[in-house]
């Protein structure tokens, strides 16, 4: 087993062991923190497909995170007030079923990613960063000025949505749900990275012109990656909103895009488990340093600087070496 694979396995086991221990000693707050790590890691893994494998520095992924959150909020709020979403041309009701909400969240954020990607992927470099940022802020201001769903104040959900056979209000059961989803997405992305699609996407990141001479269309590849990435980030958004039983425009702000990117950079850009380690570290710093000082972001900034300057492959790169693991 390569060192990176060992680190990946340890990370996944640690993320499972900590909340199980917390459950055993009855520390529900720690379970909630671990759930937050799993959800942020999921968002990071989603962005990492576009950023790490595709080389697409998207500063608008918070939009997909927020769309996933609002998909949950809107469906659940209509279900709890027994008012339909629409009555024409057909009756459309809200739902408290998590699988349905996840599906809607992924479809809606995937469609938004398709529209954003179709336009922004025609640009590259700093223009791509700016256009995705602009789209993200567009969605953010739309959410602020949407009074039907709380506007700036956001939208509260009284009871967490349900999953067949589980009590989702029990922190450990909700954590397990998020953990399994993260593990499934990690497995799927590991397969995707090794598929001809993943290899071509990686090749397009390395040399755009050269992939065209072997008959590959970089634009189409990147658009598919961007849509999958947006859909997974949307799923994380739906889970995050369910965790807090609250959704607000903050989820769509550019700071959220930046935070998701920070998870990836801390853990290692292009490393499958980079966002998992990054999200874990971020939440730990937020929890422990946040308790010491309200200016904890300063320490995070210093850490980020150190990682960027001295550990280009993030923490995984630092521990496992420069090369990305290959079987």
């Amino acid at each position, binding site marked *: 087993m390569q060192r990176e694979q060992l680190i990946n396995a340890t990370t996944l086991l640690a993320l499972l062991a900590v909340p199980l221990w917390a459950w055993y000693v009855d520390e529900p707050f720690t379970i909630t923190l671990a759930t937050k790590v799993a959800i942020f890691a999921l968002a990071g893994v989603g962005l990492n497909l576009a950023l790490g494998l595709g080389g697409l520095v998207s500063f608008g992924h918070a939009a997909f995170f927020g769309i996933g959150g609002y998909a949950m909020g809107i469906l659940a709020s209509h279900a709890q007030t027994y008012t339909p979403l629409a009555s024409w041309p057909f009756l459309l009701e809200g739902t408290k079923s998590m699988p349905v909400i996840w599906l809607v969240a992924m479809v809606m954020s995937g469609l938004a990613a398709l529209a954003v990607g179709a336009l922004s992927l025609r640009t590259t470099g700093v223009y791509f960063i700016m256009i995705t940022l602009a789209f993200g802020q567009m969605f953010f201001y739309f959410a602020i000025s949407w009074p039907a769903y709380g506007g700036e104040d956001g939208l509260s959900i009284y009871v967490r949505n349900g999953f067949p056979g589980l009590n989702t209000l029990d922190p450990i059961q909700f954590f397990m749900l998020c953990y399994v989803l993260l593990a499934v997405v990690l497995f799927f992305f590991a397969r995707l990275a090794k598929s001809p699609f993943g290899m071509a996407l*990686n*090749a397009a990141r*390395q040399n755009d012109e050269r*992939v*065209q*001479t*072997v008959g*590959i269309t970089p634009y189409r590849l990147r658009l598919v990656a961007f849509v999958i990435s947006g859909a997974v980030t949307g799923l994380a958004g739906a889970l995050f909103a369910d965790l807090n039983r609250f959704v607000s425009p903050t989820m769509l702000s550019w700071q959220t895009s930046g935070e998701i990117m920070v998870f990836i950079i801390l853990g290692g850009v292009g490393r499958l488990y980079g966002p998992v380690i990054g999200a874990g570290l971020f939440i730990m710093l937020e929890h422990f340093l946040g308790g010491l000082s309200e200016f904890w972001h300063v320490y995070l900034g210093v850490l980020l600087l150190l990682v960027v300057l001295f550990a280009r492959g993030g923490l995984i790169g630092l521990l496992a070496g420069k090369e990305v693991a290959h079987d």
Partner: protein
Amino acid sequence: MNLLQLSHISAFYGQSQALFDVHLKLKAGEVLALMGRNGMGKSTTVKVICRMLKHRGGTLSFDGQNIADLPSYKVARAGIGLVPEGRRCFPNLTVLENLVASARPGNWDGAKVNELFPRLAERKNQMAASLSGGEQQMLAIGRALMTNPRLLILDEATEGLAPVVRQEIWAAIAQLKQESGMAILVIDKSLKELATVADRAVILEKGRSVWAGEFAALSPEITDRYLGV
């Protein structure tokens, strides 16, 4: 019928004209040597064929189809495989991944490429960036073959390689000519090796095609005048 035909091709880099009047014909199964001193327009001609550079004048057709308005990836899908100057494999992919990423349906697959270059099979899980120059060249050829081309373009395929490796590459090109029947456009400075594979030759001088004919008809006067050898 000609598989590839270029007539009166002119091309520019910005305001600077690089090709003035290039003519070139290549039949299916034929090996054509594109020759000329440095800076005469050989690689620019290849860029025009692969649509990495748009020409301004003249006509360009492949298998009877006008390819002048096609983007690079469609030219590759039409059946033109390029082994670029300087190899340029995808450095952060393994040998196997480089091949799989380029694969298109057809006769050529990983097993056939490994048969042609057994060294690639030994290095299949090694990063392309960590290969020797010769192995990278083999990978670049293998990658182009994986697209199942009808025309293979080799731009300076043996430049900067050790003599032993050069022999391996030339042997592979000869094998491709004999067994695959694909057309090959080869750019190289080594007349001796070109003579073993090339059927015809075209010489470029200052962006113009100044000589075309059977390779065997290349006289010392012509090579001395246009190639300086």
